[in-house]
């Protein structure tokens, strides 16, 4: 071996040690903080366990018992159906409105910055304050904004938060708060599209609608995929709004899987029973949902077929 090569090898070896040294803390943190809880949760979902942190020695194997319990629970099934409704109906509303706003705001209108900030504003306000505002000031049946408006035009007030309408009232309030976030992502996507494409299209005689459906939308595929994934995760981890719309104890009309998980793991008003195993099973089911949605969107919305 020539002497210079052995020097190189030595250097590389040293470098490797350095690389390993620097990567180690990060890798270990990731393994301990991320992989360990994930693996433990998956494992826990197959055991009967009272407390989340119970010693492994106290776990007793339960097979698919926890899964059987949650899928046999009317409340869990209701919560899944609520989640699906939020995902589908809320998703269509949020993403459509967000896209619409994004297109309008990038079309060169005046006061663009003001509108952008105003629409994004609900994301800055604490969701607790936002939900309280909706519940106490907008939906209130005596002096709420909606009923005041109805009365102004001579119509009778509606009980917006009755058991039949509560879910939709909650969804509407949530959609209001969520639009701004997705709009910003859409705006960044639209601004990435080169202006000359639109100029060329205008010269060729394409109107705004053609431009939107033939240029903007196809070039936003990647962004739509990102937004869909974010929306899905947002829906699956939906918790606070449900809690706010059913204070004291959960109600079937607004319950979602994470609230069910929380009640199962930590007990609820009037029932101190805790079942961390079933809670873990709910967590695993939700994680599988995120995975499925990601796979589907990746399959149907490929963003690498267009380059610009």
């Amino acid at each position, binding site marked *: 071996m020539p002497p210079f090569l052995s020097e190189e090898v030595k250097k590389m070896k040293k470098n490797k040690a350095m690389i390993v040294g620097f990567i180690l803390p990060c890798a270990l943190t990731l393994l*301990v903080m991320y992989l360990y809880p994930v693996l433990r949760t998956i494992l826990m979902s197959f055991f009967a366990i009272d407390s989340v942190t119970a010693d492994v020695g106290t776990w007793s194997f339960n097979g698919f018992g926890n899964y059987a319990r949650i899928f046999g629970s009317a409340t869990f099934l209701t919560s899944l159906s609520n989640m699906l409704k939020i995902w589908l109906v809320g998703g269509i509303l949020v993403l459509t409105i967000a896209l619409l706003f994004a297109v309008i705001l990038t079309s060169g209108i005046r006061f663009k910055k003001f509108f952008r900030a105003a629409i994004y504003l609900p994301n800055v306000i604490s969701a607790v304050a936002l939900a309280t505002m909706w519940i106490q000031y907008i939906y*209130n049946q005596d002096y709420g904004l909606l009923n005041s408006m109805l009365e102004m035009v001579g119509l009778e007030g509606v009980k917006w938060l009755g058991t039949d309408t509560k879910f939709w009232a909650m969804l509407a309030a949530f959609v209001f708060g969520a639009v701004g976030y997705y709009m910003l992502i859409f705006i960044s996507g639209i601004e990435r599209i080169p202006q000359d494409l639109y100029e060329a299209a205008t010269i060729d005689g394409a109107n705004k609608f053609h431009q939107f459906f033939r240029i903007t939308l196809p070039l936003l595929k990647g962004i739509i995929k990102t937004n869909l994934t974010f929306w899905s995760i947002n829906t699956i981890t939906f918790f606070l709004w449900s809690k706010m719309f059913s204070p004291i*104890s959960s109600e079937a009309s607004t319950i979602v899987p994470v609230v069910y998980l929380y009640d199962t793991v930590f007990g609820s008003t009037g029932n101190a029973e805790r079942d961390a195993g079933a809670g873990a099973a709910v967590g695993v089911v939700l994680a599988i949902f995120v995975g499925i949605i990601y796979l589907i969107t990746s399959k149907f919305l490929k963003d690498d077929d267009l380059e610009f």
Partner: protein
Amino acid sequence: MKKKLISLLLVSAMATTMIAGCGSSTETTTESAASTTAETTAESTAETTASTTEETTADTAAAETGELPDYSGVELTYWSMWNSAEPQGQVLQEAADAFSEQTGAKINIEWKGRDIKTIVMAALESGEKIDMFEDSDSNMATVYKDYLYDLTDMAAAADYENHSFKCLTDYLVNKAGFLCAIPEQPQVGGVFYNKDIFEACGITEVPATWEDYLAACQTMVDNGYQPLALDSTYADFLFTYHLDRVIGTEAISDLAVNGGWSENEGVIQAAQQQIDFINAGYLADGAPDEYPASQNKIGLTGEVAMVVCANYVASEVNNNTGTEVNWGMFNYPEVEGGVDPSNAYAGSNAIGITSYSENPQAAFDFAMFLTTGEYDQKMADTASQIPADPSNTAPAMLDGTIETLQATVNPLTWNAGLNDNADLKTSLKDVIIGLYEGRYATGEEFAAAMDALY
């Protein structure tokens, strides 16, 4: 080279600490126990190892004379379910300061807020240094009991029996098998009402039976008042209270778990009575409303007379509406042909002392300091709560609560057994809200809707 060596060392040190920190819980217990022992000074060790008989004698003497033993060098860690800015938190801090001054003990309060229920179990399992902590009595007696100190002997020595509500301590003893915690901030359920409206309507005696109650409601309606506020979040509380008077908690629990609502005459009767109550126009305008809109009307309009809830409703309404309602309270009325009507919903928060605490006696003395005498009265007055010591006086707005608590032998649980079915309670609750929304024309229809969930 040197630098690299040092950086490598640092990195490996970091990694080792991390691995050590994430060891199994048994290891951590030993470790933390070891470290706390190391931390404890020689002086305090000497003090804590002083014989318990001496301590007990000292304490009994203290209870009699009102003087506290010397706990210099003792350090107590207290996990609180309050935040330091809340009135309860402020009184707790004041009490801790006073206790420190009188005994020399140092009390470190960690404000965990209401989410304590999600974190304290992990801390107990890993043997974290906590001497005492707060949570609901039901969690103490069921979830944490294995980690709690048996306070029976210390309580007997301190004559605690005469400074507590029997129904609250009995609950803890019956559920956990031993006195596992000290109740504080008691709660009691019942009918909370505006005395001024009763007076204006000429109702001189609080109704004791369902017939009297209906008659009182009719009198209120005749005088232009609205009898009962109801927010949907408490619909199940109201209905199960009534149902308890008809069939009792055990029967409700059985129905909640196994179904068969339609086959129970009592359920149909209770539901029908509530339907008739609603149809007679005894619910406040807009009820069932969204919490806290309906209960707020008691303060805002001055025309709504009553609400069935626990005692905190009084201060909630006063605070929310900026009014001083002239509150009174009576136990939910008896239903003819029903079961024992003397019991009320009762519960409390409780202070538990960890079984591994090094200073259980000092912790117990501090719990006593907080839940009896001067600071208990202060807690009741400042936070508008029922005192934990019946010999103290309840704030004016909670007039009648101490008597109801004392008359209660077997307290009702929240929703009187309905919540025993954890999987269905949210759906059952929705059907009950529907009952008050007028969805069912008869008791049979309601019972059938309950059964349809099984």
